[in-house]
């Protein structure tokens, strides 16, 4: 019996050893361990074994069985590893072939820029609000300290619908709406479309966008205005951006300023882009004029504030180095897909 088992074992070992491929292993398994396999038939012949020897023989058979199984497993693992190796060797790609893209759409460069600006100010506690584009003269001019027949009104080349209703020439009108709500303090930015009677060319458009900013609270200073806008410039244009404030005049702010930022193309050395000056004019700003506060029912003795207005296209054009504003309104997908 023992010899028989040993022979079966040897036979199995040889067959396993000589099996050239994975699918042969199963045949071998069946021929030894299957219902009609050799080892099974040994078990079936147990009845011929003396009862006292049966446990021992059983043990021997089981040992043989697990050995064969072990050998089969080992061989199987060997074949699988070899197969995997071969597969991996054969499976190579030309990784320089183009990637497959989902042709998703793109936001307009104006919108991308606006969202960046919004994120910066929302992070500083500003609400993003909107106001009407078709507006009363009062909100666009009068309440901003620009009375009827003021030359500043002419400077803006405003489109009129009627005597009292116009297309807003500045988002500053939203300042007035916010102040009139009477809820203080105010921290807001108001992005939106504005209209001026400029013929279309590379740097002008009768429609463009501004982002108005307004902060009103107790103890707001010109230094706060400078600090806030510097923070804005650094976050928008990157660390190392410098700002410069120059005195200017706006009817609805006093003191007023224009802010330049160090040219983000040349870093301030001077280039064709900044016309050699190293600076790029980016926005107008100032402390809210006390008369403007008064007209909207805010006591200038108690509250002060600052306001600023940024040209969205101006920033977008600079940021992306777009040299012709008309591209923004043509909607050629070869342009739009670049952003």
């Amino acid at each position, binding site marked *: 019996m023992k010899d028989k088992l040993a022979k079966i074992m040897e036979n199995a070992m040889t067959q396993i050893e000589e099996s050239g491929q994975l699918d042969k292993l199963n045949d071998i398994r069946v021929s030894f361990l299957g219902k009609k396999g050799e080892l099974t038939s040994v078990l079936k012949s147990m009845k011929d074994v003396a009862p006292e020897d049966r446990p021992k023989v059983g043990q021997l058979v089981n040992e043989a069985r697990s050995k064969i199984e072990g050998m089969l497993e080992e061989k199987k693992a060997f074949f699988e590893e070899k197969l995997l190796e071969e597969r991996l060797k054969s499976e190579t790609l030309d990784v320089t072939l183009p990637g497959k893209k989902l042709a998703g759409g793109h936001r307009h460069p104006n919108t991308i820029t606006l969202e960046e600006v919004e994120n910066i100010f929302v992070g500083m506690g500003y609400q993003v609000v909107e106001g009407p584009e078709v507006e009363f003269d009062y909100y666009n001019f009068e309440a901003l300290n620009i009375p009827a027949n003021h030359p500043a009104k002419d400077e803006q080349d405003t489109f009129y*619908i009627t005597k009292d209703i116009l297309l807003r020439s500045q988002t500053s009108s939203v300042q007035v709406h916010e102040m009139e709500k009477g809820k203080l303090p105010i921290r807001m930015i108001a992005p939106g479309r504005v209209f001026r009677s400029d013929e279309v060319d590379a740097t002008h458009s009768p429609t463009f966008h501004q982002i108005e900013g307004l902060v009103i609270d107790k103890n707001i200073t010109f230094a706060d205005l400078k600090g806030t806008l510097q923070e804005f410039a650094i976050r928008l244009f990157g660390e190392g951006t410098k700002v410069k404030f120059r005195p200017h005049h706006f009817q609805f702010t006093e003191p007023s300023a224009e802010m330049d930022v160090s040219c983000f193309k040349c870093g301030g050395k001077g280039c064709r882009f900044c016309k050699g000056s190293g600076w790029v004019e980016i926005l107008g700003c100032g402390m809210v004029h006390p008369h403007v506060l008064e007209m909207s029912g805010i006591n200038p003795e108690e509250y002060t504030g600052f306001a600023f207005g940024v040209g969205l296209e101006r920033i977008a054009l600079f940021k992306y180095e777009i040299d012709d504003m008309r591209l923004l309104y043509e909607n050629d997908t070869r342009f739009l897909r670049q952003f």
Partner: protein
Amino acid sequence: MDTSLSWIKAYVPGLECTAQEYTDAMTLSGTKVEGYTEFDKNLEKIIVGKINKIEKHPDADKLIICQVQIDEEGKEIQIVTGAPNVKEGDKVPVVLEGGRVASSHKDGENENGFKIKKGKLRGVESFGMMCSIDELGSNTDMYPDAAKDGIYILSDNPEYEKAPIGSDAIELLGLHDVSFEYEVTSNRVDCFGVLGIAREAAATFGKKFVPPVITETGNDEDVNDYVSVEVQAPDLCTRYVARVVKNIKLAPSPEWLKRRLASVGIRPINNLVDITNFVMEEYSQPMHAYDLDMIEEQRIVVRKAENGEKFVTLDGQERELDDTMLMICDGKKAVGLAGIMGGENSMITDNVQTMLFEAATFDGTNIRLSGKKLGMRTDAQAKFEKGLDANTAIEAMNRACQLVEELGAGEVVGGVIDYYPVKKEPLTIAYDADKINALLGTDLSEDDMVNYFETIDLMVDRQKKIVTIPTWRQDLERMADLAEEVARFYGYDKIPMTLPESSATMGGLSDKLLLEGKVRNVVEAYGFCEGMTYSFESPKVYDKLNLTADDVLRKSIVISNPLGEDYSVMRTSALGGMFTSLATNYNRRNKDVRLYELANVYLPKALPLTELPDERVQLTLGMYGQGDFYDMKGVVEEVFARLSLTGNIEYNPVAGKSFLHPGRQANVVYEGKAVAYLGEVHPVVLKNFGIGERAYVAVVDLAELITMPKESVKYAGIPKFPAMVRDISLVMKKEILAGQIEAVIRKKGGALVESYELFDIYEGSQIMEGYKSLAYKITFRASDRTLTDEEVGSTMDKIIQTLEELGASLRK
């Protein structure tokens, strides 16, 4: 506004700075310098030379050989020239070997000028060049005594005759100078004059401002014996100063005056015109001169014109006036359009004997509006428009008369006529150093502040803490204005940078803006790129859009002063812009274009507008190339789904859009309300816009969606029990819509129907003419048990029975 550096220096003694330093410092203190031109930028080694001898060139008829003396010791160089106008003994500007000139006779101007080298002309050596005024970077307009074609003969000008040989010719001609161009803001009326700018420059550089000293002028006659002045429109003419000059001797101005004017680009004409222009530049006060012999009845009347009155201005143009315009008249007729232009009938001619000088203050707004109506824009008008300081008028007048005497241009008659009924008094403003510091965020002493006020000629009473504002600073009205003066001269750059430390506020976007952001994400995921178009439209777009005559979209707001017809109305739909953009892409051969715009449309409540219109934001989608109606519909469905608008949506094919294909359009009805539409663009509209293939659009009224209740998203549990799937294939008449079939599946299937999917549509030979086949996969599932065949079977029976009643039978 322009000034030259030399002119500023005349009133700011001791000012020493480069053009760039001046530019930077003035800009930082609030007088923005836009740019500058250095006249001597390309002028080097140019001296006064004297032609001692001229010989003919042996080999060239048109050339001559000059021996030119270049220093007082008698050193000569040889110069060959083709200039025809020189003679022996002439003094001329000579550029020496190695020097530079601004322009070349042959090549015109050049950014870096032209270097002069020694050379040979037809075999004869030449060691420099004699210059024309153009080669010196100027022209005969600014140097009227220079030859038009030829060398500038300096010795022909008595003022230059004695110039030492070898001396700097550029200095002699006043070209070592810089012209600055300023951007003066509308509030700083004083800075439209050289004196105003000079005052700012003095304060900026910490120098003393020394304005011209005006001396008394006039003979012992009385101007009132010559003329009288009557102002009938005191609201429009607040001051009228008049003086008379007789025995006028018109002549060229002295060089200093010509150079001043030339340095700011004003062409010298004669002494009288030049004086007028000079004073206007200095004081920003326009003056006008009338030939007094043409003034009838020896009187001036300032009155409004009559409607339809005609008047010939001195440019020879006849103008038609109206009764808002202010006229200067004599006893019988109009002689000038106040503040804008004088009349042809009283203009100064070469024969003038006696003249009337006028320096007046007119209402700026009136002048501006009159000029606009007449389509005129003169220098004088531009000054008056700013709203001039009436107190300056008298100074300007006396300054002009002083110059008349100095230049010997005539005899000034004694006395002044000065109509000035309401004198403008200086304003006083209280100041409070603490408040100014609180506004600026600074910590400056009162001493510092007072010092800044005084450097710009504000008078300070420290006891009363009051500043008296001279009338020429009409922009200073309250303490905030004083704070700006402090900030300007302390330096905007020195003010610290802080962040507001007060109350915390919540930042964020409005619901509307958040919703717009979501919509962008959805449509971009479907390949749509964001476009932007103008809010203006052409009224012609209605016809291009194939709109019916009574279509409500034709009711649009009209701009009263548009840029042109193409931009004359406010859009009621963004489709015109969308089709134009699609056409642009189509013409440029861009394939598979998908665009969207979040566009405001402007819907008037009534026309003409009495209240603000309804501004509605609409999502407008447009595409051509890959994709059809159902792709567009899929995007619209996704927009609703992603906005959590889970209510009942129906697609009604009776949408009534004349710009869409009649058989391929639908209104999107959400909870019973039409809030969007979509469809294939009507072929006629495609043709009108020049789009050469089928295109699809959808318009979603986001303004409406914003107001609608949104289902908040709740987790539903991943199904634990298996689904049962049944396929049915139905045959029906073509007229029956898939929507009707699906309504039955939903209604009869009830809660057990988890989903259904149309997986096949067939029309063709296998099926009867006029019929179609639709095949649906219906998925049944219960959340609490495994469904049985019987349950599903009886539900299917109900569905099929109802479908058969509808006219859809099971395909055999």
